[in-house]
Each structure stands twice: as structure tokens, then as C-alpha cells.
């Protein structure tokens, strides 16, 4: 909502500086968004007279004009306007001036070798009208003595742009703002005596509101002004509209705009002669069409509130008028409409047709139902004053009658909500100033809500009004109590934080990427999931919810590689989605590692990152989080975005209940398809929701301390096994031989090739044997050796290598 202090003063007696006003507006909840001096620099624009014109030597359509700008020196100005002629009084802008329309700053310029000092301006360039065909023509009788004077009247008033919250339709009018200010002690609201129409002429255009279901119009007031002469608005009116950044159009249109801004009463003016046999306010029928004032043709659906005549739709009530019945400069008879439309109906229609207009904005927030007559009175008298003509009686049709709502207000509720007290007397004064009428009813008050405040429906709204006007600075600070009754984080949340920092501590940079992604990337990683499309995405690259974090992560990894960072690890912890319903999401820790280890190292041989690097990161992270690596079970069934032979699936227990993690090389085809330039790319996903929470707290996790000081023995074995045999199975078999005595098993060699039959491999392990109770004798050790060999040979089908 744009206002000026000057316009406010039409409604407010006040004698303070503008700065104070700005502070006050913000303090009472009418936030000042910006303050702009529209007239700044406008004093440079001068009334000037063309003394002589000559054809430009190098351009047929340009003229070189000698211009009298009231200074000694005659200015030479190059001008292309066809109407530039000797003797014309027009508007001159010198170098340095900023053209209001396009905000360009003029400089002394050579135009086809002729130097031009400034410019002669069209009305359009000065934002006076749409006229852009030639330069402004000022009447010589009026301006002959003003050559050299400033064209614009200086206004000291700044344009103040307020951010009005959607609950305050009343403050979409200057008077509403003035009322709020006055209630807060900033000036006094002027009592403006409403001039009422006292006509004997009746309004001859019949208006009917159909009484049907979902009728969006509750009342329709109208007034006919006959024999008018539409004209340019007088200067005071033009200035008023220009002062808030609006463009004057014609007197009739300007008057309706003025009334709308002044008291938030939207009006519509029809050319009465274009209305065919009266007005019917009714619901639209599907398929009806009309062309609106924005020059678009709208196809209507059922149940939209339309203003129509015998020939069809004239306009969408409270939203936009139609071209067929609009006023023009030659309009002779004007029908002014002042109606009330249901906010819900307005909103539904505007949304379905995707129209946004000033009237719609106001009606959907709720217009004062009792302002119908005031609007007609104001507009009709102004039309008569400016355009002449005769005013008819006011005609009001309605299907329901407005009654001010009454609510109960307990003064004690104020302190209960705000924590501080004000006197009941002061409360009543504020409410009175805001337009409430208060009646005492035992201990409470019965408040009649002003018709312009549809937002106030219950006691708490009244409390809000009071505390807003009294000032939020009066609210006392209650220091918070440092007391914790419930633990801050749940076990899952603790695990989230732990995994996040654990992964980062292994050299991964944490990234946060969008929860949506490019369907093209997502396709690679969605697995069995459905694609989850966003209906109105910001762009097609962000068109679907991500089924996996990999899609975004791999894209950004690729970008970083293109930036020249070859060896890089990044991760993200966040949601992935498997359905469109709330809760169909998982928390996943997803990491990627690219490039080489020890690249260009003087110390170590460089090598590509591989599946066992990423396996280490996954296993270590899970172990750090409190899971027992001894119990992990790993197989090679992984989603198709992993390398089929170099990836793994990890379960916390052999039971295979749910997948704790995947890890492995990213499928080379994907790397190729997204054209990523890296030597190696490995990744992992840890599924937080699939990790069983460690039930015990740290103190319970510390079991009784017991270690063995008896001698350890280490025995090495080399087995020849089938190539398909997994080391995990062999190690498990060995460890099951005697869980008490076998304390550790290390795999120190895996070999295929010479001396080993095809389809077989050699696995060498070192087994640590130690008793908790005694030093083992050679016989005991031999016994275990024998058992190990026997077990492995029987269960795994291995042969001890001799």
C-alpha cells in the first residue's frame, strides 16, 4: 500500500515530522517497506518554448530545435517528434535529468554529428499519460509566462510503501491508516462530514441479484450520472495519483481509483449506454466468455460471480470489468457500481482464472460492507464536479443484511496474554478510537465490531489490537528458567548427529543439496522406486523428489571435478523419498569419494580410491556408532547403480533383517553417461532408519573388564578354495571352531594364478589362539590346528596348502 504523508493529512490532524510517522507506522504493525522521493530531480524539468526548427543535416526524420529554457543561452536540442514546431511550448529536460519513465539519465550527446543539449519530452516519458507519439504540448495561454519555470510542482511528501498484512483490509485505504495512527496517539482523526446524494431522479438501470446457491454478491449499490463529459482529471487529482506512483487516465477512472485508495472502497464505472436492459448479478455458466479490461478473453466455469446484462457477461464481480461496457472519453452516462463480494467467492474465481487485480486483492481480504453508499456519494459528487451531469438516487439491491458482530471481551484477558496491565479506561479509549462500541455487561464488555474489521472475530483479536496500539515495547522480558525435564535429543537424533560427524571426521565434506533433483539423474539411482513428480517445479532440473541422494551428490561431485579438484570426498545426510505421502521418506547418509590416494606423493605410491577404502569408512563409522563389526554380515546383492562385482550390502547381523548400508564402486556406465572425468568413484549409503538403536546408554555398554595375560600363539594357514567361496564364510567357520580360544583371525594373503588350479584361489590367514585360563601346551595347540583344518575342509571344501 503506497501512501504519502500529505494524503494522510487529509484524514489526520498532525504536526510532527515524517520520521516520527515512519517509526509509528512500524510500531503499530503497518510496516514501512520503503520510502522514496518521487519528485527528486523533477525540478530540472522546465517549461520551454521552441524558437526555431531545422531539418537535421544527416537524418531525414530528426530536427534540430533552438529552445528557450528561460536562460540567456538558447539550447540546441535534437528531436525526432513530428509535432516539434516553432512556437510550441513543451517540457525540456537538461543533461543530468533522469527520465521518469525509463530512469535513464540524460547526457550531452552527439546525434549523427549534431550535439544535443538535453531532450524534449513526451507525456509518456514524463509518466503523465500513455501518449508517446510526440512531445508534450502545453497550452500557450496557460504557460506562456512560465518559460524557464519548473514544470512539476514540487512535493515534499515522500512515497511511503507499507507492507499491509492480509488481516488488515481497512489499512488498504488511507483513512484506515489514519484511524490506526490516531488511536495510537499520533494526531487526531478528522471528522469528515459525508455529503449525501439528495436526488429526485431515480436510477433507471434495473439491477437484480439472483438468489441462488453460492451467490458471491451480497449487495450491489449503484448510481447513474447522466450527461457527463469525461475529461482529463484536474491537477489536484492527477497530482494525488502521481504522488503515489499511479498514472492518471481519465477523470472517471481516476475518480474511482481515488475513492478506492482513499477509503478502500472499490468501485466500477460502466458506460451506461452499453448496458443492454439492466444488470443481473448471477453465477456464471460453464463455457461463457468475456473480454476483460486487461484485453484477455476469459472462459468461465460454473458458479463464478458475474455482472451481466441481456447480451452476456459484462465483468467478473469484484475482480475485473469487461471491455464491452468500459467508460471512454466519449462516455455520456456513467453507472457507478459499489458492491460487496464474498471474499471466498472472489478468491476461488481469481485462482481458477489466474487473475490478480487491485480490486480482487481488496475484496478477497474483505471490504467494509457499510461503505457502499459512502463510495457512491463520494464518486458521484466528484464526477459531477469534474465532468458535469446529473446524479440519480442511489439504488441498493441486496440478498443479505450486514449486522455488526458482537463479541465478549474480558479485560483480564489482556494481562493473561501479554503479561502486563493497562487500565480498563485506557483499553476502552483505544477501542473507541478504533471504531468499536463498548457496552459493559457485568464483568465483561460487549463489543460491537466496526464493519471495516472483518479480521476481528474473538477475544484474542481484541487483545492483539490493544497490545499493538499500546506498543510491544511495553511487554516485559521474563528470563527463561534453566531447567530440563526431558532429554533434548532422542536416540535416533543422537545417532543422526553422531553419524554426521563421524563421516565428516573421515575426510568427507558435508554438503546440503536440494530434496528434489533432475529426473535424468534420478533415473540412474531410483532403483525400484516410483518417480515422484512435483506438479509445479521451479525448473525441470528440479522436477522430482529424490529417490536417492546420489543423484544430486554425483552431479555436484562432477562440477567440483570440472573445477579442477580431482581427489575429493563429499557426503550428505538427509531425506530420500519412496512415496508421495507424508512419512514416506528415509534418512540416509550418502557419501562419494573420487580420484586417488597419495596423488603426487614423494613418499607413497599413488593409487585410485577403491571399494575397500569405502568399506573401511562404512564399517568404521558403524563401529564408532556402537555396532559390533564381528556380527556384520556382508554380501554382494546391491542396487544396479553400483558396480556389480565391486560393491557390497551390509547387515548389522546375520539375520538379514534390513540393509544397514550399501557401498562400492559406482557403475562405470553411469559415470560414462553423466560424462564425469574421474579415475575412480566409490560411494556408500547408510540407512539410518534401518539401524537398530543401541538400547543401552554408554554406561551400560561398558561391560565387566576382563583380559587374558596367558601366552598367545599365532598360527598361519593357507587354504586352497573354490573361487566362489567368500572369505567371510571361511573366517566365520574358523572362528566357530572355538570361540573361547580363537581371539583373532587376520587375512594376510589372497592369491590366484600360478601353482593354483583354475577356478580356485589361495587364502592365507593368521589365527591368534589364547586361553583365558591357562597357558596352552603344544598338544592343545595341535588339537586346535587339527580342528581348524578339518572344519574348513569339511564346511568350505577347502584344502590346506602344503
Amino acid at each position, binding site marked *: 500500500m503506497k501512501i504519502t504523508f500529505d494524503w494522510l493529512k487529509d484524514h489526520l490532524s498532525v504536526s510532527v515530522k515524517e520520521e516520527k510517522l515512519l517509526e509509528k507506522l512500524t*510500531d503499530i504493525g503497518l510496516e514501512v517497506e520503503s520510502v522514496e522521493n518521487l519528485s527528486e530531480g523533477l525540478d530540472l524539468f522546465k517549461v520551454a518554448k521552441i524558437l526555431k526548427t531545422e531539418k537535421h543535416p544527416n537524418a531525414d526524420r530528426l530536427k534540430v530545435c533552438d529552445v528557450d529554457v528561460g536562460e540567456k543561452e538558447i539550447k540546441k536540442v535534437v528531436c525526432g517528434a513530428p509535432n516539434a514546431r516553432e512556437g510550441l511550448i513543451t517540457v525540456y529536460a537538461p543533461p543530468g535529468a533522469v527520465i521518469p519513465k525509463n530512469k535513464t539519465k540524460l547526457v550531452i550527446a552527439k546525434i549523427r554529428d549534431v550535439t544535443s543539449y538535453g531532450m524534449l519530452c513526451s507525456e509518456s516519458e514524463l509518466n503523465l499519460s500513455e501518449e508517446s507519439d510526440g512531445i508534450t504540448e502545453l497550452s500557450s495561454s496557460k504557460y506562456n509566462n512560465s518559460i524557464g519555470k519548473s514544470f512539476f510542482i514540487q512535493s515534499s511528501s515522500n512515497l511511503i510503501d507499507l507492507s499491509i498484512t*492480509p488481516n488488515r483490509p481497512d489499512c488498504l485505504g488511507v483513512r484506515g491508516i489514519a484511524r490506526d495512527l490516531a488511536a495510537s496517539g499520533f494526531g487526531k482523526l478528522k471528522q469528515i462530514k459525508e455529503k449525501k446524494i439528495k436526488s429526485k431522479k431515480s436510477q433507471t438501470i434495473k439491477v437484480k441479484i439472483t438468489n441462488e446457491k453460492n451467490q458471491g454478491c451480497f449487495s450491489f449499490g449503484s448510481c447513474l450520472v447522466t450527461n457527463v463529459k469525461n475529461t482529463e482529471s484536474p491537477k489536484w487529482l492527477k497530482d494525488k495519483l502521481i504522488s503515489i506512483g499511479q498514472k492518471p487516465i481519465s477523470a472517471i477512472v481516476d475518480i474511482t481509483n481515488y475513492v478506492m485508495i482513499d477509503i478502500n472502497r472499490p468501485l466500477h464505472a460502466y458506460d451506461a449506454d452499453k448496458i443492454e436492459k439492466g444488470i443481473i448479478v448471477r453465477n456464471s455458466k460453464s463455457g461463457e466468455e468475456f473480454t476483460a479490461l486487461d484485453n484477455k478473453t476469459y472462459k468461465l466455469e460454473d458458479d463464478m460471480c458475474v455482472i451481466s446484462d441481456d447480451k452476456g457477461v459484462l465483468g467478473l464481480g469484484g475482480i475485473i470489468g469487461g471491455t464491452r461496457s468500459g467508460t471512454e472519453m466519449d462516455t455520456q452516462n456513467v453507472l457507478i457500481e459499489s458492491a460487496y463480494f464474498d471474499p*471466498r467467492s472472489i*478468491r476461488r474465481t481469481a485462482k481458477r482464472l489466474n487473475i490478480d487485480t487491485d480490486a480482487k486483492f481488496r475484496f*478477497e481480504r474483505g471490504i467494509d460492507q457499510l461503505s457502499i453508499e459512502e463510495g457512491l456519494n463520494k464518486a458521484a459528487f466528484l464526477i459531477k464536479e469534474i465532468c458535469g451531469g446529473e446524479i440519480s438516487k442511489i439504488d441498493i439491491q441486496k440478498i443479505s443484511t450486514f449486522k455488526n458482530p458482537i463479541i465478549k471481551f474480558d479485560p483480564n484477558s489482556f494481562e*493473561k*496474554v*501479554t*503479561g502486563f496491565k493497562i487500565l480498563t479506561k485506557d483499553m476502552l479509549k483505544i477501542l473507541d478510537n478504533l471504531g468499536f462500541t463498548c457496552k459493559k455487561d457485568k464483568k465483561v464488555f460487549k463489543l460491537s465490531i466496526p464493519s471495516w474489521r472483518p479480521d476481528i472475530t*474473538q477475544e*484474542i*483479536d481484541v487483545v*492483539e489490537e490493544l*497490545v499493538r496500539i499500546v506498543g*510491544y*515495547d511495553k*511487554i*516485559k*522480558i*521474563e*528470563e*527463561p*528458567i534453566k531447567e530440563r*525435564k*526431558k532429554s*533434548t*535429543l532422542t536416540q535416533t*537424533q543422537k545417532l543422526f548427529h553422531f553419524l*554426521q560427524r563421524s*563421516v*565428516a*571426521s573421515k*575426510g*568427507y*565434506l*558435508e*554438503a*546440503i543439496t*536440494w*530434496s*528434489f533433483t533432475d529426473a535424468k539423474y534420478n533415473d540412474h539411482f531410483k532403483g525400484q522406486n516410483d518417480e515422484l513428480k512435483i*506438479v*509445479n517445479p*521451479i525448473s525441470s532440473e*528440479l522436477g522430482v523428489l529424490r529417490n536417492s541422494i546420489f543423484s544430486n551428490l554425483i552431479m555436484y561431485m562432477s*562440477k567440483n571435478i570440472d*573445477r579442477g579438484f580431482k*581427489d575429493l*570426498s*563429499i557426503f550428505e545426510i538427509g*531425506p530420500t523419498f519412496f512415496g*508421495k*505421502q*507424508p*512419512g*514416506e*521418506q528415509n534418512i540416509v547418509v550418502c557419501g562419494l569419494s573420487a580420484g586417488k590416494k*597419495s596423488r603426487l*606423493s614423494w*613418499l607413497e605410491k599413488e593409487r585410485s580410491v577403491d571399494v575397500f577404502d569405502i568399506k573401511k569408512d562404512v564399517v568404521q563409522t558403524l563401529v564408532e556408532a556402537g555396532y559390533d563389526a564381528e556380527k556384520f554380515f556382508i554380501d554382494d546383492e546391491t542396487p544396479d547403480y553400483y558396480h556389480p562385482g565391486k560393491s557390497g550390502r551390509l547387515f548389522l547381523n546375520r539375520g538379514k533383517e534390513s540393509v544397514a548400508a550399501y557401498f562400492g564402486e559406482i557403475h562405470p556406465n553411469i559415470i560414462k553417461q553423466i560424462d564425469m572425468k574421474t579415475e575412480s568413484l566409490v560411494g556408500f549409503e547408510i540407512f539410518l532408519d534401518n539401524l537398530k538403536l543401541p538400547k543401552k546408554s554408554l554406561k551400560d555398554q561398558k561391560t565387566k573388564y576382563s583380559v587374558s595375560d596367558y601366552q598367545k600363539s599365532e598360527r598361519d594357514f593357507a587354504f586352497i578354495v573354490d573361487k566362489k567361496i567368500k572369505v567371510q564364510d571361511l573366517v566365520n567357520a574358523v572362528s566357530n571352531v572355538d570361540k573361547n580360544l580363537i581371539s583373532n583371525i587376520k587375512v594376510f594373503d589372497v592369491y590366484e594364478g600360478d601353482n593354483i588350479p583354475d577356478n580356485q584361489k589361495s587364502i592365507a590367514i593368521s589365527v591368534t589362539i589364547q586361553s583365558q585360563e591357562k597357558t596352552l601346551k603344544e598338544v592343545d595347540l595341535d588339537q586346535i590346528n587339527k580342528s581348524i583344518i578339518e572344519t574348513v575342509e569339511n564346511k568350505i571344501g577347502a584344502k590346506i596348502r602344503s
Partner: protein
Amino acid sequence: MSDIKNIRDQFLSKLKNELSLDEINTIKTELFGKNGQISSLFKTVGSIPESDRKTFAADLNKIKDELQSLISEQIKEIETKEINQKLEKERVDITLPGRSFVRGKIHPVSQTIDEISSIFSEIGFSVEEGPDVENEYNNFTALNTPDNHPARDMHDTFYLDENKEVLLRTHTSPVQIRTMLKDKPPFKIIAPGRTYRSDSDQTHAPMFHQVEGLHIDKDINMGHLKGCLNYFIKEFFEVEKIKMRFRPSHFPFTEPSAEVDIGYEIKDGKIVIGEGDQWLEILGCGMVHPNVLKNVKVDPAKYQGYAFGIGIDRLAMLKYGINDLRAFFDCDYRWLNHFGFDPLDVPTNYRGLSR
């Protein structure tokens, strides 16, 4: 006795020379070997007349100790010398780089969430969460924002179906609804998380982060709200004093509602919170609307309290001097490395939010 003395003198003088390890070992054998001179003398102890035997044995032992310690001293000396000589050849250029390491970092948004949680933990808030995909009811209707409410237009919502029934939550406020429907009052929670609006420019990203706060009890009023936020802002920005301004505003789910500005100034191109006369909007808050309480079956006649919503990304930008919101989600290695935090820098109450 003279024998013993002779041996002593003879070997002492021998040991005075600069000897090699081999030479010393030879001397050692000559003295203490199986047939060494001292060893041989010990064998004669039995044949010494009893009257002299004690003295003889004592003298012999004394000289044995003397020579033995001299020899072992010399051996030690030589060994040390030899090691030192060897080390002389083993020098490395210690300025050569060590084995390389990589540093991981925590994203500034995650760090900020941990800081926020730590601060609110101290005054008794616990952390709640909700899904990113919400239904229209929890995101709007239950929050007193029915379909016909113009405030809905202020949220540019991403929808997942044509009927506009499921959407990406536009704020963290639906977590209030979920929490209150699930449990019984009192409630004292914060809910940090991802939020979404179809808006994208230099200062808006289609995804951003908010933290919701909710405190409902029997007599929680606006003074408590002010106190809570005042405490939070002071702790978060790690300053002694802040300038805070509560400004009336409107949110459908709170009444009365406020926006909170903090005072700042620009010093040497950097923003300084708590000083100066510029105002910066950092959050929205208010007393939970009775209609919202009714929607979640909490009796507004018995319970009341406040709620607030803070933009996490914006807080992080202010605290850590980050200019561009879009960069948060661009995953540029250089940016993450520059603005990220060491994973060991966990914000806690006892060691403070930051180093």
C-alpha cells in the same frame, strides 16, 4: 696380593688406550674368560692359607668389580659412539611433507542447527521432527490458514498432486500440529528442518531451513516469549547485549503476532550484531492462536503459549558473514571448505558454542 695388583695395573693401563670393541672383548676374555686371569685366581682361593684367604678374596673381588665396570663403561661408550656415527648418516630432510591427510567439514547449516539445539536445550526445549512432505491440513488448515485465506498466497507452495492435497512443507510449523496431536500439554519443543517454497533468486532458495519453537503451558505469556528469544539471540550471537525490537505483524496461526528485528551496524564491511541503529528482521513469532489449539484438541481456556519460526540459513549468514544464500546448496568444494566446521567442534553448553 702382588699378583692381583700386577694384573690390575697391567689391565688398567691397557684399558687406557683407545680400544675397539673387539679389543675390549679380548681383554674381557683375558680376564674373565674360562681361563682368564681373574677367573684363574678365583680358582686358587681354596688353596690360599686360611689366614690370608679372606683378604685375598676381598681384594680379588674388589679388583674384579673395578675392572668389570671399567670394561662395561668402555663398551657402552663405544656403542654409543658407534650409534651416533651411524645416525649421522641417517639424517632426513624433516621439512619434507608428511603423509597426506584430508579434512572433512560440517556444513554451516548443520553447525548452526547444533548451536541452536544446544542453546534451547539449556532452557528445557527438546527437539522434534516432522516429514518434508506434508498434507495440506497440517501445513495450512490446522494452522488456521483455510483454503480461502489470502495468507496462503504468501507461501509459494510446491505441490505433489493436482488436487493440492500433498505438498512440500512451506514452514516447520506443521511439526507443532504433529507434536500437539501426538502428546499432551505442556509442550516445549524446537523443530529444525528443511522447508520449501517455489521461489528462487539471490536471496531466496527453493529449499531453506527453519527452526520452529513451541512452548505451551498453563500461564505462558508474551513476556516469556520475549525472554526466550532475547536469551536465544544473545547466546547465539555470543554477545553481551543485543538490541531487539518486537514489531506487530500477522500470521494466521498466532495472535498476537510479532516480527523480531535486531539492531546491527556495518563495521569495516562486516555486519556487527547488537550495535548501531539499523534493523534486521530475523524471525516471526506470536501467541499460538486459540483456533490452532482447538484444532489439536488442546483447551485454549486452560493452556496458552507461544510459537516462533526462525530462518536458520539467515542466522548462519549473519553470524558467519556469508553473503550468498544460494552458495549454501551449491556444494562448491572451496565454499564448503571455507565455511565448514571441523567435526570435532561440537557446540556444547560447557565448552561454549564455538572455540
